[in-house]
């Protein structure tokens, strides 16, 4: 049906092969390539898990509850995102902005909970050599030998979940730009200051917060060079990216958290 409808569009161009606009096809191609990035990371994690004896199972019930709430946040954010797309195609600008803000709020909730999870694990002694040492802390019994005997655990866990957290963070920024355009830049700068000054110097988030500053500069340049009002196609393309981030978590949650749950 879509194919036949396309033939009716008067144009000097030949009909679109995929029956949709270029931006959307571009985003799909990017997401396919990103699938391979996360696929490789998930395979690396699984490979390490299978081939290494004594793989730790550090996620006690509190961690599993935390990760479940994070999952609920992401699933809810996907719902609010489709509602934002729906509002945009109905040209309801106010609801579009509100649903986009709700999506960003859920995404931010996910990042905060994930950050708390990371901080707890680091405080318990699970760390990477590149992370600064936490002063005056006692390494939990389960992590005493993990860094020496199973270094793959921390490397693959922080690598995989860190990559996903970066994607969620960039997704929130992307939605912020689509929803609020230039007004989002000062908000982003405030968030950068809060994240930078509000985290202790030994936290990886202390220097990780500078991603927000870099994003603010890049978004500022883009909005200055090409100011525009984002339409329904832009919201839909942003939505594709957001749903993909949700989709990836649907594999990380069971493989990383549930399969390594501490069951007493």
């Amino acid at each position, binding site marked *: 049906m879509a194919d036949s409808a396309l033939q009716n*569009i008067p144009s000097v161009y030949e009909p679109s092969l995929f029956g949709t606009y270029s931006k959307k096809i571009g985003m799909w191609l990017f997401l396919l390539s990103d*699938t391979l990035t996360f696929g490789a990371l998930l395979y690396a994690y699984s490979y390490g898990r299978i081939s290494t004896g004594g793989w730790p199972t550090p996620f006690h019930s509190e961690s599993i509850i935390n990760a479940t709430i994070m999952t609920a946040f992401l699933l809810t954010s996907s*719902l609010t995102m489709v509602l934002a797309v*729906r509002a945009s*195609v109905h040209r309801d600008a106010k609801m579009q902005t509100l649903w986009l803000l709700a999506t960003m709020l859920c995404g931010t909730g996910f990042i905060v909970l994930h950050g708390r999870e990371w901080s707890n694990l680091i405080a318990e002694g699970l760390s990477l050599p590149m992370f600064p040492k936490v002063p005056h802390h006692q390494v939990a019994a389960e992590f005493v030998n993990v860094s020496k005997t199973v270094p793959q655990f921390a490397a693959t866990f922080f690598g995989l979940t860190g990559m996903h957290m970066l994607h969620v963070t960039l997704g929130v920024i992307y939605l912020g730009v689509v929803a609020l355009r230039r007004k989002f830049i000062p908000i982003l700068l405030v968030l950068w200051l809060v994240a930078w000054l509000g985290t202790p110097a030994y936290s990886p988030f202390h220097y990780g917060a500078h991603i927000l500053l870099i994003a603010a500069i890049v978004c500022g340049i883009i909005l200055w060079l090409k100011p525009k009002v984002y339409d*329904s*196609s832009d919201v839909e393309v942003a939505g594709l990216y957001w749903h993909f981030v949700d989709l990836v978590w*649907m594999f990380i949650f069971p493989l990383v958290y549930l399969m390594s*749950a501490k069951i007493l």
Partner: protein
Amino acid sequence: MDTFQQALAEQVAEQHRHHGKALFFYVWGALLVMTAIEVYLTYQHMQPVKMLTILLGLSFIKAALIIGYFMHLKYEVSRMKWLTMCSVVACLILMTIFFFPDARRILELGVK
């Protein structure tokens, strides 16, 4: 955007206008229920391989729901659906071929 792209975007928007809001809530509910089942199964002292199989099965169903309904692929033209999904699945199968010899250890030696 040029006129042709705008016409395509408007056509896609028109397709979106025909979707009811309720469907998205059903999909969201199904995703939440499947997540709850996953967490419940974690504490049922199942064999790791059996649990992994069920968890991955549920993850693929959840992924299909997200791609089909939230990402709207169910309503795209056939060429779009087949080319995108076949290409990504083929690449993941290639990764699996490299992974396969060690993955067999799950069946033969069990998960540590």
